[in-house]
């Protein structure tokens, strides 16, 4: 579907940072605990011995004060982790009991477990992070730059760039095999370029970076480097940055080729749909007058995909019509000063009768501001007629500004086509409060459910339904008639490349970190599996929280052997109980290990370009933060693995 974006999960915003940090610190806890156990173990127990190729504590904790610090943090982290598990168990037990009294107990225990987890994570961060930060103080950017250049030159001179000529072959012959509807042409080409580039770049990046440090160790070139005043972590950073630089260069070149490929000979229909970088302003969707509804959802028409909910047209039953209402906050003055603001929408049609051939479903759209008084519709219409009779150059705009009201009586909705309405800028002028008192009044009304701007959609076709989700209707913050579509589309194309760039950083970082203490093949495979696992993270998450159909692995086995379907309740036998209890333990394990798997879905931004939507800068920043949050623990691990490794020991 074109013209609108599907958000099954809300994109991250800067406001999510505190919550993300809270969760991140909690997730760090168990890993830091294991790390500190190893650190203390190697330092105290083994002394100057080595565990595999990991050397003594002298290298890992070079200052005397670090050992008691790590020990204290270990104890706090351990206590926090135990407390977290205890409160979680209590919350689980409380949840099994019925009654309101226990609901408070559940909340209390969940909050307590969250706090305990945070404290454990914080202690882990301090214990593992302090020696790491201390070690980072000795890093020299000039040396890192030297190692970065080396990695870059290595990549270039080993001619790995030739691999990417394969992309040109794909692009040259792809059009032979692709035939699409004209309006899909641009989106198809955008997706094709992304599809061709992504696996090629990711595979090459993983391959190059996973084998770099192991090759250095095998060929012993690293010995010549480490006998210079080089911190071992500088080698890790140098390799990482070098390959990121190399892949960035390749990505830029490939994107230039890609954008030229996409922009040649565009069909006008495709250009109208996708050759844009729309800046949408999304409102909050609620429903009114839904039978048995709560306001959050419309009616269900029985579609398996529950992303959209529906409003019905007239069904011959008395009562107010079902409405979908989008609420928008106070607009900016830029919108108010514009003559027209475009409102775009695309709804799903669900027909209960055949309807009329070659005709869509009709709907009306009513735009009101917080100033609009219910019942003033007739007055607004009368004023409009008056202005039209007086040959006013902009009667609609004036009425909208005066009354805070604008209505499109009838608009046809067609499947898979984005429709739009030009709203007079006067409506937004009306919505902006003129002074503090008005603003106060506006805020008070907003609390009562009257939004600064509201859009009400009503289905007018009898016996038909219109389906909608929150992002299906939006106001254009950019000027729809502003021109320079090709330029903004190209800029957006490169913005979407930042998503692939972050995936490359992730793969390279993962591979380089793993390769500090693994052979190239193993690092390549583990890095690849973790990354690919990221595409299945949603399913893994469902398994981890018991939300998947059919239960855990043992419950599934019981179902297989007893030939019970996935949805049917299981008979409560001893075997079933044991299987379900063991599955619960498995889920706890998966919940912990799941954090090792990157959430790569954040980085896919091709849909924005294909649908012709601008990628918000804030989203790029948030994705970058997610990337950092994931890679940082890996780099801390790499620091210790590299620092403690006996480089010249038998490979």
């Amino acid at each position, binding site marked *: 579907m074109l013209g609108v974006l599907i958000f099954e999960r809300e994109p991250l915003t800067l406001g999510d940072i505190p919550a993300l940090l809270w969760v991140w610190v909690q997730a760090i806890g168990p890993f830091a605990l294991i790390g500190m156990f190893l650190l203390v173990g190697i330092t105290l127990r083994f002394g*100057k*011995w*080595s*565990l*595999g190729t990991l*050397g*003594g504590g*002298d*290298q890992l904790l070079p200052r005397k004060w670090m050992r008691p610090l790590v020990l204290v943090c270990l104890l706090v982290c351990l206590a926090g982790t135990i407390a977290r598990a205890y409160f979680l168990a209590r919350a689980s037990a409380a949840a099994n009991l019925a009654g309101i009294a226990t609901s408070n107990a559940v909340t209390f225990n969940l909050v307590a477990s969250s706090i305990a987890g945070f404290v454990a994570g914080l202690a882990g961060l301090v214990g593992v992070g302090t020696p790491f930060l201390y070690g980072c103080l*000795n890093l*020299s950017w*000039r*040396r890192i*730059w*030297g*190692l970065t*250049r*080396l990695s870059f*030159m*290595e990549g270039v*001179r*080993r001619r790995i760039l030739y691999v990417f000529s394969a992309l040109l072959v794909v692009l040259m012959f792809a059009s032979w095999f692709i035939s699409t509807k004209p309006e899909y042409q641009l989106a198809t080409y955008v997706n094709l370029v992304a599809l061709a580039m992504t696996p090629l770049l990711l595979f090459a990046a993983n391959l190059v970076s996973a084998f770099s440090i192991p090759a250095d160790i095998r*060929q*012993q*070139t*690293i*010995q*010549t*480097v*480490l*006998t*210079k*005043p*080089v*911190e071992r972590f500088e080698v890790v950073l140098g390799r990482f940055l070098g390959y990121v630089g190399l892949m960035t260069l390749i990505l830029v070149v490939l994107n230039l080729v890609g954008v030229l490929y996409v922009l040649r000979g565009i069909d006008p229909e495709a250009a109208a749909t996708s050759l844009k970088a729309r800046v949408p302003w999304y409102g909050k969707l609620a429903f009114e007058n839904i039978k048995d509804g709560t306001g959050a959802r419309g009616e269900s028409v029985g579609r398996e995909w529950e992303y959209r909910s529906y409003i019905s047209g007239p069904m011959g039953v008395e009562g107010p019509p079902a409405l979908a209402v989008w609420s928008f906050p106070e607009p900016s003055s830029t919108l108010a000063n514009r003559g027209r603001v475009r409102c775009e929408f695309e709804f799903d049609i669900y027909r209960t009768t055949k309807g009329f051939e070659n005709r869509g479903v009709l709907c009306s759209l009513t735009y009101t501001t917080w100033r609009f008084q219910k019942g003033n519709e007739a007055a607004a219409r009368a004023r409009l007629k008056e202005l039209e009779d007086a040959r006013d150059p902009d009667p609609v705009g004036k009425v909208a500004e005066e009354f805070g009201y604008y209505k499109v009586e009838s608009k046809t909705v067609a499947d898979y086509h984005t429709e739009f309405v030009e709203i007079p800028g006067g409506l937004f002028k009306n919505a902006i409060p003129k002074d503090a008192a008005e603003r106060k009044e506006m805020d008070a009304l907003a609390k009562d459910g009257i939004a600064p701007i509201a859009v009400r959609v009503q289905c007018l076709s009898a016996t038909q339904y219109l389906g909608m989700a929150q992002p299906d209707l939006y106001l254009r913050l950019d000027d729809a008639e502003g021109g320079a579509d090709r330029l903004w589309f190209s800029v957006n194309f490169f913005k979407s490349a930042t998503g692939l760039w972050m995936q490359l950083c992730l793969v390279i970082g993962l591979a380089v970190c793993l390769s500090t203490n693994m052979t190239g093949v193993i690092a390549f495979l583990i890095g690849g599996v973790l990354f690919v696992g990221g595409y299945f993270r949603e399913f893994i998450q469902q398994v981890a929280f018991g939300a998947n159909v059919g239960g855990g692995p043992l419950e599934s086995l019981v179902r297989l052997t007893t030939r019970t379907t996935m949805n049917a309740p299981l008979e409560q036998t001893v075997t079933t109980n044991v299987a379900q209890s063991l599955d619960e333990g498995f889920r706890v394990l998966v919940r912990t290990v799941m954090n090792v798997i990157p959430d790569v879905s954040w980085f896919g931004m091709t849909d924005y370009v294909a649908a012709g939507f601008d990628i918000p800068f804030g989203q790029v920043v948030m994705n970058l933060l997610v990337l950092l949050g994931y890679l940082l623990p890996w780099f801390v691990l790499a620091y210790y693995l590299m620092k403690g490794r*006996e*480089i*010249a*020991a*038998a490979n």
Partner: protein
Amino acid sequence: MAGDVIVSTVRLTKIFRDFWGRQKKTALRALNLEIRRGEIFGLLGPNGSGKTTTIKLLLGLLFPTDGEATVFGAPAADVRKNEKIGYLPEESYLYRFLNAEETLDFYGRLFNIPPAERAAKSQKLIELVGLKADRKRILREYSKGMRQRIGLAQALINDPDLVILDEPTSGLDPLGARWMKNLIAELRNQGKTVIMCSHRLEDVQDICDRIAILADGELQAYGEVKALLQDINRVELRASDVPLTPALRKELEEVIRKHGGKVDSVGHPTTTLEDYFLRIVEESKAHPGRRYLPEADKKPATTPAAASEQIQDPSRIQDK
């Protein structure tokens, strides 16, 4: 100050273990060494005796199982000590996709040497090691000897106080080996300390001030070369401008016997093969176009001196 101890090991022990901690091999056992500023110190021993392990422990590439090693007063694992160290590994472990200039530039960066100084030093060292004509060729195209030379250049890029050389003459022809030995002696003259380990005992004997001999990871001998090699139970007499006649031999034997000794042998001293080889190469440079005549074209030489004359006699050398 001459005589300062700059490298010290105390009961330095290295046991290699497998992943599960089981002992695989004791590479070094309780090594006590002191190496002083300004000396050339040789580490000798058969394969697997612990020479390279000792060097790698000093460089922080391996961690000691027991005991400790200090270099310039700092623990061996402290990378800051590497500011004053130059290391030439046994094989020149360099990046083969770089050329000579890029190699030295890269290692110079690791010492945070400013760009202009780095470029000047690189050119100077490339000339010193005789690779000026090949400075733009990537190392993959270099012979082993050339790689050893550029390896030495990278070891000297930071003008180190301590130079550690693992088999420095490995892969070099006799001319190159002599050049390397002269250079090592020159480093000592500049006040630098050199630690070298080598299988070529004549190299060690030629240039080392003190040596340590290791076998099976244990120190077997340690001290000044001259003192260690001196055989106080034997007397050597060398004389020139006198023919070795039977009468002279008899008289010498009588004098030795008179003082209670016993003559083992009396004869002409022989030069080393290395000196002989170098002399021949030098002469070939002085007389281009000369070559050795086939055996059939020569008069039979009756004495070694005549044989030598045959080679040196221009009438016996055929121009190409």
